[in-house]
């Protein structure tokens, strides 16, 4: 199979894998078939979905390097954009169904609750990465594009902290996710060390 065909098929799989659960989720939620509190369910589902997709996006490069399958890098952008889509739904769910468009409450929650502040920061950074994924902008930005997109290493840590701080007592899952994030960053140990030194020297 040609690499182009492989990329095409992978992209089809990614579209289906990301969209079907989302459509299913809202179909159930609109029909009140998502448990007693659909609001909590949609917020948790899209939140953890965004985190999963971020982890998958960040594992593409290490996998491509380890398996020497360079064509895999062609699906990174699509995965990243779906991570952003889930994050956007997560925020919209919180704003419209949990907070129910109470502007003052939304602002005070973002301001006063560290885990929501951090979540919002991650969301804004992710927005910047998504907008600059347009080819035209990418070309215009030249070298600074890569610099900006290195921010994804910070985003994954912010998201891990956001999850950890949001739970009431069950810490196993947040700690597991934290470990996954750290593992993916360790794959890039040399690059991150270089970035760190060049920023502070």
């Amino acid at each position, binding site marked *: 199979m040609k690499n182009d065909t492989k990329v095409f098929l992978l992209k089809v799989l990614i579209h289906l894998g990301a969209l079907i659960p989302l459509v299913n989720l809202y179909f159930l*939620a*609109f*029909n*009140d*078939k*998502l*448990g*007693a*509190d*659909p*609001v*909590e369910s*949609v917020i948790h589902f899209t939140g953890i979905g965004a985190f999963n997709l971020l982890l998958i996006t960040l594992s593409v490069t290490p996998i491509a390097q380890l398996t020497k399958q360079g064509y895999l890098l062609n699906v990174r952008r699509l995965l990243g954009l779906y991570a952003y889509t889930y994050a956007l739904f997560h925020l919209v769910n919180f704003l419209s*169904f*949990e*907070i*129910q468009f*109470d502007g003052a*409450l939304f602002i*005070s*929650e973002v301001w*006063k*609750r*560290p*885990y929501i502040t951090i979540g919002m920061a991650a969301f804004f950074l992710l927005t910047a990465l998504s907008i600059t994924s347009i080819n035209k902008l990418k070309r215009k930005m030249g070298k600074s594009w890569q610099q900006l997109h290195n921010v994804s290493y910070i985003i994954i840590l912010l998201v891990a902290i956001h999850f950890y*701080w*949001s739970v*009431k*007592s*069950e*810490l*196993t899952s947040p700690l597991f996710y934290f470990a996954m994030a750290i593992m993916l960053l360790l794959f890039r140990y040399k690059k991150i060390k270089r970035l760190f030194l060049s920023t502070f020297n």
Partner: protein
Amino acid sequence: MLINIPTKNTLKDCNVTDESVYLERRSLLKKMGFLGASAVMSSAITSTAQAGFFSDDDKEKVKFQTKALNFSKDSTNEHLLRTPENKVISHNNFYEFGAQKDQPLALSQGFDVAPWQLKISGECDNPITLDYDNLTNMFPLEERIYRLRCVEAWSMVIPWIGFSLADLLKKVAPNSRAKYVAFETLYDPKQMPGQADRRLGGGLIFPYVEALRIDEAMNALTLMSVGLYGKTLPPQNGAPIRLVVPWKYGFKSIKSIVGIKLLEHKPPTTWNKLAPKEYGFYANVNPNHDHPRWSQASERSITTGGLFSRNRVATLPFNGYGEEVADLYKGMDLSRNF
């Protein structure tokens, strides 16, 4: 005298398959590999049909049986819009059966409530132990339609059935040293999977313990509940007997109680031990004292409707029961004693 002469075919007691073995027969078959062989032979369609008729989890399918109760109706609160029964019994925080809201329903249906023993002891003149039947026949039962406010900022309206804790305490005659009333949930990791598995149990320390000041316990609103919506409690709601303290956050209303002890000193309580800055001993519903990680000023009231029900309402001090209970806390700084 009847002499029973067994023939070759008569089954003896020891031949009867143990119920647990019977219920697990399919997984036993699976382990022996028989099902694997039959699956190869049968077509996809028949195996789907089999899954429908003889599912692996026969035990899960057997729903816990609740019984109808005799009680007097709560006519004063009839106007309150109640949370539908199917939501009340499917959205539960009962970490003994799993920390996710839907797990208690899924993992508790085999829970055995009879025989049950509720021991009331400590600083009192007549310690007693109630058995399962006593829970519903010792006191006349009444319906109480109460708002329940969870510390997670959602709420329900539930028609409980039960009797005043005060009536029970009067029976045991607390002495002058009794300043606090401590409660304890059953500890039985065999029946409560959350107690056996730290991850499922959300990292709580079991058995779950809670406590009230004696004057809070004697307040007329404080209810020992044995039922809801006209029937005995299902396990996920705290069968066979639980506490309901409507002016406090839900975690104070301890479930499946086996022990009540009158004490001179303040005992430890489960959530307070786990995170003292987030969950106080009093845990009175208070819109002016936020949880460190979320606002308590308003709540989502779970009634009918799905995603689009506009159900965010202002939270009331003492969950709207200030008239009955505010006096208990006269002169106390409620933001320090949260």
